């Protein structure tokens, strides 16, 4: 546990969850998805462009442009700007940055947007040049991209803690059940455990349905004061607690835990709730093993007991532990950095009772977890946030 005298995120509201429908491949640029997201934020909030004065932008595929260029592309003038290319933790970090800016008055309304395209070959170029370490020590081994890294981790986890393919499969099957009613999910067809186990191998022991499907899309939300949200009559949530951690446990030979293991007590103590009060959880589910590690590190079960946790819970929206309630990335697809926003927009919909798919009954507290950036042999960024239904 870390010593902390962090201020609360009082008076900060998060509102207007936006999803620009995902497509497997697109001939549009990331800027197109960003423009559609901004238009949807304005339409959803009733604000004019001049009503926004902050932008927080995430993308892997907008290059050579960053958040600065995006202001000119989108024709907006802001007095607060941040660029957060942190993959799966982009949403949590964007929320933390924007919340403080709004709380301190540096900005009144911040648009947080993650937009990525997926053209033929674009994923390979991201993978090939993802980092200097990746270029020197991962890509030349045929192992560029996350599949190989998570295969090595899954192999280690299964052997060390006795998890079975059937356990990960149960989690994937139940998440897919959640996706069935979600219009945003690219994969909505029911998945059976047999289909999961018989799917073609991708990187042993990972099979097809263990791996997120890269796609194009955007996710976005607005951060503003609660007063402003009320003036605009926007359903919104408040931020009870949020943490981030980068490069935790650098000396461990292989990553079996993330920064949540350092931050979980601070997260719940800042939020002022117990983990048993949480109504739904959105993990960063690029691979099932990573969801399990997040559940362990956040304290829902002990390290190594993830498989038992899966066996003793059901993860559908009406189950004992609603998890990844829109199907998660494993069903929705992974639209680049937007994958790091998905848990936030879905949580926001659940606690404001506006989910287009299956709704968790009377959802009040949502926990969102983010994870990202396999720079070499492990994901360096982890973060989490707890949202509460406002009012």
């Amino acid at each position, binding site marked *: 546990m870390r010593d902390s005298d962090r201020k609360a995120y009082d008076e900060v509201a998060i509102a207007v969850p936006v999803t620009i429908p995902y497509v497997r491949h697109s001939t549009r640029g990331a800027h197109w998805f960003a423009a559609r997201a901004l238009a949807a934020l304005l339409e959803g909030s009733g604000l004019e462009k001049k009503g926004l004065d902050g932008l927080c932008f995430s993308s892997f595929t907008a290059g050579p442009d960053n958040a600065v260029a995006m202001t000119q592309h989108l024709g907006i003038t802001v007095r607060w700007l941040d660029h957060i290319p942190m993959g799966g933790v982009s949403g949590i970090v964007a929320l933390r940055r924007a919340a403080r800016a709004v709380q301190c008055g540096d900005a009144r309304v911040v648009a947080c947007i993650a937009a990525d395209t997926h053209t033929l070959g674009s*994923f*390979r170029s991201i*993978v*090939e040049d993802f980092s*200097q*370490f990746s*270029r*020197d*020590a*991962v*890509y*030349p*081994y*045929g*192992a*560029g*991209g996350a*599949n*190989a890294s998570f*295969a*090595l*981790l899954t*192999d*280690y986890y299964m*052997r060390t803690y006795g998890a079975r393919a059937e356990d990960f499969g149960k989690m994937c099957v139940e998440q897919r059940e959640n996706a069935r009613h979600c219009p945003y999910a690219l994969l909505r067809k029911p998945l059976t455990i047999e289909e999961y186990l018989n799917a*073609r*191998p*991708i*990187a*042993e*022991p*990972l099979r097809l349905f263990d791996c997120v499907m890269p796609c194009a899309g955007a996710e976005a939300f607005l951060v503003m004061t609660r007063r402003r949200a009320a003036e605009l009559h926007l359903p919104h949530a408040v931020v009870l607690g949020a943490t981030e951690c980068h490069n935790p446990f*650098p*000396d461990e*030979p*292989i990553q079996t835990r993330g920064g949540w293991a350092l931050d979980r007590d601070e997260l719940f103590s800042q939020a002022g709730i117990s983990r048993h009060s949480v109504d739904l959880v959105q993990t960063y589910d690029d691979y099932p093993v990573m969801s399990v590690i997040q559940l362990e590190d956040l304290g829902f079960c002990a390290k190594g007991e993830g498989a038992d946790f899966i066996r003793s819970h059901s993860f559908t929206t009406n189950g004992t532990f609603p998890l990844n309630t829109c199907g998660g990335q494993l069903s929705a697809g992974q639209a680049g950095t937007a994958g790091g926003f998905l848990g936030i927009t879905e949580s926001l919909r659940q606690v404001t009772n506006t989910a287009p798919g299956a709704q968790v009954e009377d959802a009040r507290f949502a926990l969102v977890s983010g994870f990202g950036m396999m720079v*070499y*042999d492990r994901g360096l960024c982890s973060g989490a946030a707890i949202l509460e239904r406002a009012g």
Partner: protein
Amino acid sequence: MDLFARRPVVCAAPSGRRSRVAQPMTAAAASGQFELQECSVCATVQYPPREACCRCLSDELVWKHQSGAGELLSRTALHHSHDPYFRSRVPWHVGLVRLDSGVSILAHLPADAPKPPARVWVEAHLDRKGAGVLVAFGRSDGAGLTEDPRLQEMCSDPGSANVFVTDGGSLHSQAVVRALAAAGAARIWVGFESAGDSFVVPQGLCDLPRVTCLRMDVTDEPCVGAVAASIAGEIDIMINTAAIAQSRGVDAARSEMEVHYFGLLNLARHFVSPLSERAIRTRRLCPAWVNVLCVSGLRGYPSWGTYGASMAAARSLSECLRVQLREAGVRVVNVYPGPLDDRRSEQHQVPKLGAPAFAQSIVEGLRAGVEEVFPGEVAQEWFHGHRGRQL
């Protein structure tokens, strides 16, 4: 011909891109050494390579020999890769190794590598692109490369290969032919200079199985072109042994340049294209072009005089060829013997290299997959005294 028939993907080499800080690993691997960065101040070993020590931030980093011993933590078989080279060679095996020095390494594995957790030994080798990569074996005898159906492409085992030795006129090159035959070469062509209309072949050489003798004079460009037209499309390994005896005087100096430098240039003009074209389809080994040079080509020895100057010219040309042929997945191997035990070296009062030992060092160099071979005591002395400053 069916234009739409499915053909195997032709991709001779993986991506060879590396950061500047990672280049020394390749330089060490080129002569069979496994070196990693060590901090001169706090002795931390680190990988992947960095600009500063990740513990004490000192920039006094030196590349030091590593034992390679470590533990295989996990492994995977990739059934997909974003890199076309690996994608056309799946399943490809990689593993995560914790070296005893405390760094985690992603390494290529032979298919028969042990199941983790297991002791392994990491070696540095050159991949098909000539870039340094790490390979972990379940044994420490250093002979694992030639036995794996995928990793054998990182070396040039003469077993089952078609080999051309450009000049069989010396006892040392005849020893090379015998060593190749003993190593199981499929076919061996040996060139001999003509004496009038015919050429003289030493007793017994053409009686060896699978050996064909032909007329070849590297200084005679039409002759080189004719030989290339008849056999170059079938060659896996070419060993240029053409050299003349050392003598004094300006005429001798011109002859040395004629054979060592212009001879190599003639070979380059006629053999680069056909060797490259064959190489792009070759997967059983890394096709190789071996140039037998001399340690006197690396620095000036007064006793070698102009001979060393001609070898330096040839070495420079050979290094140009190396860069050019890397793109096609052909390895250029430079062999730098010290004084050979023949007439050429009678005046040298140093240990001389016998023909069988010389020949064996070439075969071993091909099997080890190195780019630089230093046969004999004088060459080894030079190698250990000067490597890093001149190579």
